[in-house]
């Protein structure tokens, strides 16, 4: 239940940001009401837990993980661009299986999404402890197998 106030605050902040009304009490009251209704619906759907509002990770996904992922994305983008533009298209399509070491479901989903987010590799199926990855080149596949991404997500999870 400790996740619902956080979700409420986030909803309220989003409402204020997108409406742009900070000084009209009537409209703001309506906004608070709609936020409360959304929260009620979310609670009834039972999706407010450590996955729906991952507070326990704090801001670390944005400060520690996202910059590294962005650099990785740029690198693999350039690689895929080279493949697409070159007239011969040197494709080395293959499928590899990656085993995530993250403890929680959330960590595994984050790994799968990060793999998909870097172009050149797409996670095709996720079953139990294995993620099936379709890769456009061996280099891209090797990156996933080496487990740098996995290591970083585990590290992010473990910190208090």
């Amino acid at each position, binding site marked *: 239940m400790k996740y619902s106030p956080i979700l409420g605050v986030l909803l309220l902040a989003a409402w204020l940001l997108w409406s742009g009304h900070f000084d009209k009490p009537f409209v703001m009251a309506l906004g608070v009401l709609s936020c409360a209704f959304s929260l009620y619906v979310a609670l009834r759907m039972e999706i407010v837990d450590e996955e729906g509002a991952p507070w326990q990770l704090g801001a670390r996904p944005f400060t520690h993980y996202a910059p590294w992922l962005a650099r990785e*994305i740029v690198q693999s983008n350039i690689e895929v661009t080279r493949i697409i533009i070159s007239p011969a298209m040197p494709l*080395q399509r293959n*499928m590899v299986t990656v085993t995530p070491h993250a403890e929680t479901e959330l960590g595994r989903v984050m790994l799968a999404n990060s793999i998909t987010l870097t172009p050149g590799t797409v*996670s095709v199926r996720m079953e139990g402890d294995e993620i099936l990855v379709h890769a456009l080149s*061996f280099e891209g596949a090797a990156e996933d197998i080496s487990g740098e991404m996995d290591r970083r997500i585990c590290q992010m999870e473990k910190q208090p």
Partner: protein
Amino acid sequence: MNVLEIVLEIISWVLLLGGSFFSIVGGIGIVRLPEFFSRLHGGGVTDTLGAGLIMAGLMVQAGLSLVTVKLLTILFFLVVTSPSSCHALAKAALFGGLKPELDKNPPSSRDKSSS
């Protein structure tokens, strides 16, 4: 117009043009690549670097304001949702009986190809 503004203008130019370039590259990829599972990667290029660079260029234009926050939110949603829909698409295709074409099996022995 002072020096800082000119520098910002140039940065935003470069970002926007880079985003346009990657966007078109992804479009070419989606047309040129030979089969469905490879085409997914072409879509990935436009969704990540194409969208990201264009948004970054717009953010530089907007400066520090509410607009930048909105652009950041849009970019965040795009980045969060695009891999999910991409994965859902790949999974649906795999279950729908579409077999990925593989060029050759990778050298490592721990790999399991489904063909």
